[in-house]
């Protein structure tokens, strides 16, 4: 820790700003680009102050043109720069999927390794703010599906900073999935050289009865569930994979082999989702240690409702996890 940033709790938002600023100071090839990120400080204020500090050449406001500026970023990365592209929300990344899937993820592979694409695509996702069905996506599974991408989804300010720095220094394209519900979350962060490596899960709480795997905002939902379960004498182990490409299956499987029970939580939809994919890995790795089928908790398999009560009902809540854990353990599930 070389600055005073360390012990002072900062918000998830500010942790991301620190990572950007420090990496831009460290490496002149790093630049940021996106809609409203300069003069407006970004829709979620993650790039606040960067325009003043680094100027218009390194803090680039773009038109509303996701496919265009994502492609621009891919090209800049191929040419040797390290672009950090902000897509205002994951919902708008859908417009840039061709650039992401067909170019960012493929070019290094298709041209014999001659042109790595060290781009970072930051985007917040998640629901819970009554933004309607079109603006409430959790598309983590979409990106995790694609070989050639790396996918990080920080749940804490510490990881937001450490993972973003790792992403910027990584030579592969990284999809960096933030969560709108976490920007105000406060916590300690590391210094300029404290990186959080990809492919290393974090154990957020230890327990012996059941392993609960959750990422991003769902980590906090799982921890709330852990408190409720502890009151009933059930201790769950909460593990945050932090990245899905690469996935730290070892840490997950080691825990599941010890508890013999697992529940995977994911804010995305159930079909072919993160929970389904992680469960499949665990069935392969832990089949002979499992004492019950792996539970899966997802958002309801519907377009996200707008009405607050329906939206909350559709999202995974602590009580959903409590029920899934009790059910997996064969205990009586309250009606």
């Amino acid at each position, binding site marked *: 820790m070389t600055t005073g940033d360390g012990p002072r709790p900062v918000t998830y938002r500010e942790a991301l700003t620190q990572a950007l600023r420090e990496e831009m100071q460290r490496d002149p090839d790093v630049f940021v680009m996106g809609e409203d990120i300069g003069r407006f400080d970004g829709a979620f204020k993650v790039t606040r102050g960067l325009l003043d500090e680094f100027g218009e050449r390194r803090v680039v406001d773009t038109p509303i043109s996701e496919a265009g500026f994502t492609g621009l970023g891919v090209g800049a990365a191929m040419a040797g720069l390290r672009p950090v592209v902000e897509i205002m929300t994951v919902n708008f990344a859908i417009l840039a999927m061709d650039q992401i899937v067909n170019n960012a993820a493929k070019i290094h592979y298709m041209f014999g390794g001659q042109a790595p694409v060290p781009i970072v695509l930051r985007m917040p996702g998640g629901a819970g703010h009554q933004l309607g069905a079109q603006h409430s996506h959790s598309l983590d599974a979409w990106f995790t599906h694609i070989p050639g991408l790396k996918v990080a989804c920080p749940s804490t300010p510490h990881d937001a900073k450490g993972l973003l720095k790792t992403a910027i220094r990584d030579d592969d394209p990284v999809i960096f999935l933030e969560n709108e519900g976490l920007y105000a979350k406060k916590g300690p962060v590391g210094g300029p050289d404290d990186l959080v490596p990809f492919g290393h899960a974090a154990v957020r709480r230890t327990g012996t009865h059941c392993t609960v795997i959750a990422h991003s905002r769902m980590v906090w939902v799982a921890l709330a569930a852990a408190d409720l379960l502890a009151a009933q*004498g059930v201790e769950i182990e909460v593990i945050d994979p932090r990245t899905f490409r690469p996935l730290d299956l070892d840490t997950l499987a080691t825990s599941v082999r010890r508890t*013999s029970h697992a529940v995977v939580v994911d804010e995305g939809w*159930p*079909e072919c989702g993160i929970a389904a994919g992680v469960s499949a890995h665990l069935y392969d790795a832990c*089949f*002979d*240690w*499992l*004492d*019950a089928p792996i539970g899966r908790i*997802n958002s*309801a*398999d519907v377009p996200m409702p707008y009405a607050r009560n329906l939206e909350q009902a559709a999202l995974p809540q602590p009580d959903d996890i409590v029920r899934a854990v009790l*059910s997996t353990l*064969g205990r*009586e599930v309250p*009606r």
Partner: protein
Amino acid sequence: MTQMLMPKLSDTMEEGTILQWMKAEGDHVTKGEALVEVETDKANMVVDSPADGVLHLIAAEGDTLDVGAPIAQIEESPGAPPTPVPAAVPSASIPDGGADEPVATGIPVADDGTSPVIGDAVTMELPQVSVPPQPPAPVAPPAPAPQPAPEGSRIPTSPLARNIAARADLDLAAVHGTGPGGRIVKADVETALAHPEVVVDQTPTPPAPPIPPPPVPTASWPAGRRTPLTRLQQTIARRMTEAHAIPDFTVERDVDTTALAAARADLRVALPEDRRPSVNDLVVRAVAMAVRERPDLASRLEGDDLVVPDGVHVGVAVSVPGGLIVPVVRDADRKSVPDIAEEVRDLARRGRAGDLRPAELEGSVISVTNLGMFGIDRFHAVINAPEAAILAVGRAVPRPVVVDGHVVVREVMTLSLSADHRVIYGAEAATFLGRVAELLEHPAALLV
């Protein structure tokens, strides 16, 4: 083919138990006919057949299934074999598109079902996405239906439980599953391994009479720690409940054990410690001798027959951690008192250690149970079915008794014989108990 699912019979019902199929596999059923009795959280209800046809059972009697789980199929056109049902995918169903829609691949499909040309004039062969015009593949059939198939053919078992059982060489057929849907889970295997004697008890038990459910916790019942019964405790609970149906009665009498105490003192001189009889060992011997003289006391009722056993095997109740077992002294009438003493000691020790073989827990024709060591003067025991009688032994203590018109102090013990009145009548029970008392009051007779 009509699929019959576990119906939701109340607002709160989440699962139901098949109590009874009123029709058998292969029977022809008609729509509206009473087909199955289902136990819900509220009540038992009869469910009618949803269609005409031939019944194919999926769920067996006793199975507990979630609402919406397949329980039977009704085949309208006889002949075709029942098709496997895709497992219910409750929260995550994929629409299957219907018969005429091609499977969506993202590639437009020409009317003739071939792949179109992509791009301008460049023909790209994409054989892997050519869509056969017809049968839409049944979407996502993850696994064949959970077929709670022909009895005993597959026991739902968690992989972990199966693994532990395999390593311990434990036959899962003998393990009772307490997990969801009756799945054998780790705890069940561990219980079975910890209580080997209980495992064998699981011979195809006749359809156990329904045990009244435990009282539903009411608001006045304080919350507390919940511990599942061990397999042993479950077995005891079941058998005690069954025994409650026996019309029993009890006869009691006091036995003067002054001479017995003296005999025990004398035997100390002659026998090594592990062969010296306790009072209970002498009671076992007396009971065995009395049964040999009156073997009908040890009859068992089988249908409308009384079966008089050939051997006099006496069960001895032994308290073990978390329960009670009844190891058996075989042919106790032909064993000497020191032999019985040594054997009972060994059975009790191994019983507490969970080391008894199944055969050592089976075949008793009458049982002896003793709470004298706990300071109990007298008690009435529950008959250990299918036996017809059990002798409860209280403590032997000095008491004032009247002898020849004078109050004197004698050592006295109370015996209580509980008997199945369908097999044993009052006079017989009294005579039998009198004979046991007589033998105990003349201990030399026990040593012949």
